[in-house]
């Protein structure tokens, strides 16, 4: 199962996800090229039918009248076939109205059974004389037909049948090139009317639905194509309705317009009708109407004024349940077969038929390939939602252009099949895009997870570093637990896990307390490493020198030796003679400490002796200053984490610290440190501290009373 999935995924992603869509597009092109052999053909023809249903041919006039031999006529005049003289009378009635041409959609292949001469044969000769003198019905009909242009129906037969008779009115002077001629439907034989009727008719036109009839019937029996020109016994004949128009125009020549692929149009007089290569006309059907159907009985009874036929084409046909043939139009109407002739005449007069020239399938192929390639180029580059929109746009454009082409010029362009054929390609593309998006999302999740693990690991290491850093700092309360001459307290809180501040306090000897506070430039790990070095060197070298000046110069030198990162340290280092209160101090670019003496706050005077930060200026000669503390004095060393603590608008500042010092209760320096630290944090009001905070408080209580 997994292997199948992996194989499918690999196939989908081959060629940067474009191989499969290209193959599917090629397959779609092959299907389109052979669409008539696929189920898609049904979809295509029904799409074309839909165009017609959406916009049927408008029928403004009724140039054709059908005189139907319907049930009412059979009731009035007896069973079919009628005597030929009755049909002759019907035609004569029509002729009074002077129609343009009359078409007879009936084949009179054999003699009229009602002919008196035929009846006479069955009677004794004495009684037959009277009958034999009566006029022959076929002759009567022929005489009527001869009076005005009449066109008789013929049916082309694929092979000689008993009773077959070739028609006698081929089209005169028609020029057919071999390509077109080869594509026209051919019939070896035909069924035509009796010779005397043929002779009386002006022309003959075929009424076959075409050799495609069988196939057309199988496709839901819908009549879409009607042949215009066929070869019967190698002679060219028009269909009945077209022959009627030709006769109405005086029986002139017919021109066939041909192209490389075969026929393109047929021209009768000034009327031109586009055709397929084999001469078939794709009829654009109009809505069916009963208006132009007259009953033969009514015409015979003279119920219609003769003028109704004036300047119109009249088709006489059978229109009775049980006798008629019926066809279904693409509009979904069930029509008598004769209606096809009517639609054909109207189409010719309007010179309108559906157009699907031989190049249309190539145009569709081009559109398929262009649309497909556009998708293949665009979809992988876009997000899935845009890809879906792009496909919808391409589909809409194809389907829309099909409709537009029909509305604009009755062109049959099949946009729906193209859209359908693009679907597999698009699905492959979209599938790949979705897989790619999913992969990206998983990658992003994995990276996030990795970075979380990494962050946790780093945090763990930083935590360890913080423990070590904090372990470097002495705990004054514990260190000077039994001390009664002074008390020291300190607080150090890095802004990050580790920081660059430090403080130190130790007894250099019995009498001298060494205090130091420092601030390495910068923050974080680099500063913390340098802090460790500074603190250690400071404490070691301060013990080695009895002179503070020399110690600081030595510290500066030694630190500078191992300072490739070019960091520097501001520091304040002091030595207190705890018996006398004498304070020696060196200031290296650090804030001057404060002293609370009674109610007042003083600053240690560093102006004269202050130098730059340690390591900032090589070989700077630091000098120490000296002052005396009074018993009860509180010395406060601090870093800029205190003075530059910010609440977003203002800094805590030296004044803030001074106010805080002045208000401290009389308690241990350690507790006082924490009180100041709390005041600073309150001032920051929850904002993240900008810098490391360090405080060192020393209270000198004066010399011990010696009893």
């Amino acid at each position: 199962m997994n292997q199948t999935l992996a194989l499918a995924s690999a196939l989908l992603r081959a060629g940067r996800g474009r191989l499969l869509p290209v193959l599917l597009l090629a397959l779609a092109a092959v299907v389109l090229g052979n669409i008539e052999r696929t189920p898609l053909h049904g979809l295509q023809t029904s799409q074309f039918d839909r165009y017609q249903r959406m916009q049927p041919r408008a029928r403004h006039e009724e140039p054709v009248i059908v005189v139907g031999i319907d049930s009412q006529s059979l009731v009035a005049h007896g069973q079919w076939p009628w005597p030929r003289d009755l049909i002759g009378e019907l035609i004569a009635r029509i002729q009074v109205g002077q129609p343009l041409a009359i078409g007879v959609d009936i084949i009179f292949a054999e003699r009229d059974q009602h002919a008196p001469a035929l009846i006479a044969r069955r009677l004794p000769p004495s009684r037959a004389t009277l009958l034999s003198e009566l006029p022959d019905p076929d002759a009567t009909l022929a005489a009527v037909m001869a009076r005005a242009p009449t066109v008789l129906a013929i049916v082309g037969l694929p092979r000689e049948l008993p009773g077959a008779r070739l028609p006698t009115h081929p089209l005169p002077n028609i020029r057919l090139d071999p390509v077109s001629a080869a594509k026209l439907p051919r019939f070896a034989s035909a069924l035509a009317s009796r010779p005397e009727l043929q002779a009386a008719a002006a022309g003959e036109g075929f009424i076959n639905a075409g050799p495609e009839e069988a196939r057309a019937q199988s496709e839901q029996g819908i009549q879409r194509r009607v042949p215009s020109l066929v070869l019967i016994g190698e002679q060219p004949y028009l269909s009945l309705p077209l022959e009627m128009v030709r006769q109405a125009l005086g029986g002139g020549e017919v021109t066939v317009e041909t192209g490389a692929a075969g026929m393109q149009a047929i021209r009768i007089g000034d009327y031109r009708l586009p055709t397929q290569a084999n001469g078939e006309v794709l009829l654009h059907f109009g809505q069916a109407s009963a208006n132009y159907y007259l009953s033969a009985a009514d015409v015979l009874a003279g119920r219609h004024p003769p003028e109704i036929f004036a300047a119109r084409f009249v088709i006489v046909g059978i229109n009775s349940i049980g006798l008629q043939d019926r066809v279904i139009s693409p509009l979904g109407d069930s029509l008598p077969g004769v209606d096809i002739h009517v639609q054909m005449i109207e189409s010719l007069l309007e010179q309108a038929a559906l157009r699907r020239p031989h190049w249309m399938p190539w145009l569709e192929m081009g559109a398929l390939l262009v649309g497909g390639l556009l998708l293949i180029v665009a979809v992988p580059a876009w997000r899935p939602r845009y890809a879906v929109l792009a496909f919808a746009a391409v589909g809409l454009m194809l389907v829309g252009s099909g409709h537009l082409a029909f509305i604009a010029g009755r062109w049959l362009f099949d946009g729906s099949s193209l859209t359908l054929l693009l679907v597999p390609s698009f699905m492959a593309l979209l599938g790949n895009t979705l897989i790619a998006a999913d992969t990206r999302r998983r990658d992003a999740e994995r990276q996030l997870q990795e970075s979380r693990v990494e962050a946790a690991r780093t945090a763990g290491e930083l935590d360890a570093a913080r423990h070590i850093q904090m372990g470097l700092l002495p705990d004054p309360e514990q260190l000077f637990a039994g001390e009664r001459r002074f008390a020291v307290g300190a607080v150090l809180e890095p802004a990050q896990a580790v920081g660059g501040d430090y403080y130190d306090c130790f007894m250099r000897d019995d009498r001298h307390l060494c205090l130091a506070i420092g601030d390495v430039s910068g923050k974080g790990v680099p500063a913390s490493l340098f802090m460790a070095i500074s603190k250690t060197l400071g404490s070691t070298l301060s013990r080695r020198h009895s002179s503070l000046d020399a110690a600081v110069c030595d510290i500066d030198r030694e630190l500078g030796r191992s300072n490739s990162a070019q960091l520097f340290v501001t520091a304040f280092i002091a030595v207190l003679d705890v018996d006398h209160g004498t304070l020696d101090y060196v200031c290296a670019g650090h804030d001057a400490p404060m002293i609370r003496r009674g109610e007042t706050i003083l600053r240690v005077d560093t102006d004269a002796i202050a130098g730059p930060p340690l390591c900032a200026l090589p070989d700077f000669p630091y000098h120490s200053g000296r002052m005396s503390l009074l018993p009860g004095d509180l010395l406060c060393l601090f870093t800029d984490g205190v003075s530059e603590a910010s609440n977003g608008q203002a800094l805590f500042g030296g004044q803030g610290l001074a106010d805080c010092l002045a208000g401290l209760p009389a308690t241990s320096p350690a507790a006082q440190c924490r009180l100041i630290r709390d005041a600073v944090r309150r001032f920051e009001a929850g904002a993240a501290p900008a810098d490391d905070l360090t405080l060192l408080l020393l209270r000198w209580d004066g010399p011990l009373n010696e009893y």
Partner: protein
Amino acid sequence: MAYLALVVARNYCLTMMKLPTREQSGVLIAEVSGRIDHTIAEEFTRALAPLLSNCALGRAPLLLDFSGVIYISSAGLRVLMMASRQAKAQQGSFAIAALTPLVQEVFTISRFNLIVPCYANVDAACQALAQ
């Protein structure tokens, strides 16, 4: 797409710090402005680098006009210290002028005027440096 925007935005930020320069009496003056703190120190170093590489013996002295700097942290001071050392190594002249009160206070406390020459204003600096 979002990733691309992030990268673009980051690159934009990295190159955001601009030091507009002008020349006055043969001194190249670069205007620095804003807060020079830990977050911007690296960028400040990068922006200074091309100016510093030209700050050498026989070339125009480099003066940073600090009138627009409202705050400087120890990380910013470190950048100035390194700049000063580089200039000194190249025997060029490097100075700062027109410090705002808060920055002046930082310089006073840290005695950085011993490391980088500071002047009250640009004109005074130009006069001194041009000699």
